[in-house]
């Protein structure tokens, strides 16, 4: 572990300037991922720029187009329990509550959640090679322990998955990430925010190192009537997803008029394919219809040994979650039945 200096930013400008002065400077929000990585000697900040003084990033506000702006520094729990989120975006609320634990969600922020790093065992082990941690050093997961790893969109350099639950719901909701950097502001659709590893697995996303996430904006459509987040994992609570599915549906006269399906735990980013969603239009929400959509969504999936089970599990999870979305009241917030 290295030592580091600290600055509590008073304004967005000061935060962005603080990052620009030294490439090894890093923002800190909740600290729940950064401090953990630092203790494992996986990240080496020169100075932490604390964002917790930026009150303008700590609010949830309604947007003129009927959408909702989630400040980057609002905690995951405050977001999940916010009355407007609970009422209009229950898919997001339930997804957040399925992640981490209450203590972690109280500290973890919306911006930080998107930027958490993979849970690949080799990435965490400084004694192992890892292309994501040390570009060019190799990827032991491909032939090694890869139960957590990707079946879609992976590359010969890296088969890691993105661990965020929240990002999966945001993908189904088609959120937009608002960022500010030295050159001004820009908007990144969530589908373009996380990236596939390709030949540069060290890059998880398309955010520049000197850019600050200011908010995550939700469009007006929230699928409050028909939605579900299904998270499958080794224990019922406090574990990362092996496979998860966020589904949002709109129905008219018993037929699907709009569908969004995003799958987590299977790729370097939440996995979505508009063709799979289009295939559901005008169909009745039946297991057959969701099965056909799953086939499109999972086309080309490849197992690496320990994660072969994910291919069939993902298919079944998509079908089951389609049925659960029809009756959101069958899902209890944050808890699925256990012993």
């Amino acid at each position, binding site marked *: *572990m*290295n*030592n*580091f*200096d*600290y600055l*509590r930013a008073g304004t967005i400008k000061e935060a962005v300037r603080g990052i620009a002065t030294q490439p090894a400077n890093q923002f*800190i929000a*909740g*600290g*729940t991922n950064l*401090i*953990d990585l*630092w*203790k*494992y*000697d996986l990240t*080496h900040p*020169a100075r*932490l720029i*604390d964002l*917790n003084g930026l009150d303008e990033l700590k609010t949830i506000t309604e947007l003129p187009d009927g959408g909702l702006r989630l400040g980057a520094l609002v905690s995951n*729990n405050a977001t999940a*329990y916010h009355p407007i989120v609970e009422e209009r975006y229950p898919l997001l609320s339930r997804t957040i509550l399925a992640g*981490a*634990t*209450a*203590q*972690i969600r*109280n*500290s973890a922020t919306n911006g930080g959640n998107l930027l958490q790093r993979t849970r690949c065992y080799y990435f965490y082990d400084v004694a192992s090679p890892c292309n994501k941690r040390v570009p060019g050093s190799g990827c032991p997961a491909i032939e090694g322990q890869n139960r957590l790893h990707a079946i879609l969109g992976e590359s010969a350099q890296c088969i890691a998955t993105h661990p965020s639950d929240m990002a999966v719901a945001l993908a189904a909701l088609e959120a937009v990430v608002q960022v500010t950097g030295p050159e001004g502001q820009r908007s990144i659709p969530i589908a373009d925010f996380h990236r596939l590893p390709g030949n540069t697995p060290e890059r998880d996303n398309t955010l520049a190192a000197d850019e600050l996430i200011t908010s995550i904006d939700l469009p007006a459509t929230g699928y409050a009537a028909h939605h579900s987040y299904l998270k499958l994992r080794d224990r*019922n*609570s*406090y574990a990362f997803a092996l496979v998860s599915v966020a589904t949002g549906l709109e129905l008219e006269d018993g037929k699907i008029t709009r569908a969004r399906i995003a799958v987590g735990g299977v790729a370097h980013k939440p996995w979505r394919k508009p063709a799979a969603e289009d295939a559901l239009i005008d169909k009745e929400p039946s297991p057959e219809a969701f099965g056909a959509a799953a086939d499109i969504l999972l086309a080309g999936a490849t197992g690496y040994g320990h994660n072969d089970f994910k291919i069939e599990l993902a298919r079944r999870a998509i079908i089951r979650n389609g049925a659960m979305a029809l009756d959101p009241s069958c899902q*209890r*917030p*944050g*808890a699925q*039945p*256990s012993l």
Partner: protein
Amino acid sequence: MPNRPDPPTRAVTLTVNGTARTVHVAPWVSLLDTLRDHLDLTGSKKGCDHGQCGACTVICNGQRILSCLTLAVMQDGAEITTIEGIGAEGKLHPLQEAFIAYDAFQCGYCTPGQICSSIAMIEAGHGNTREEVKDLMSGNLCRCGANTNIIDAIMAVKDGAHE
């Protein structure tokens, strides 16, 4: 990583269990180490130091957080309640009483975190069913396996059996 010269320590003021206390710590010192090593409050435990066990749970500005995954400098000005601030000499907090009544600990290592965590959960108005309480308490591991009794104790307090 080349180590840089240490930056100066910072003055951090925390209101811990109702008393304002100022410490001088390096920027990388966790809130947990500050409580234990600088303020002699060793009730909060270090089980894993990586956010995985919940033994370090404290109540910070009314919310339960993991003190091992936050830095003291980030909490300057915060109000912290640790297990030492719960209950009073000769008068236990209802949850402390319930933990005794329901045999909710064996070695006791996880207990300060369990109690801080459950108090904050109840104060936040969360956990309406046993199922929800189990989920919302899953961040506090008990390696002695007292979990069932811990949930019993919390449910008893929630149901008003231990006021």
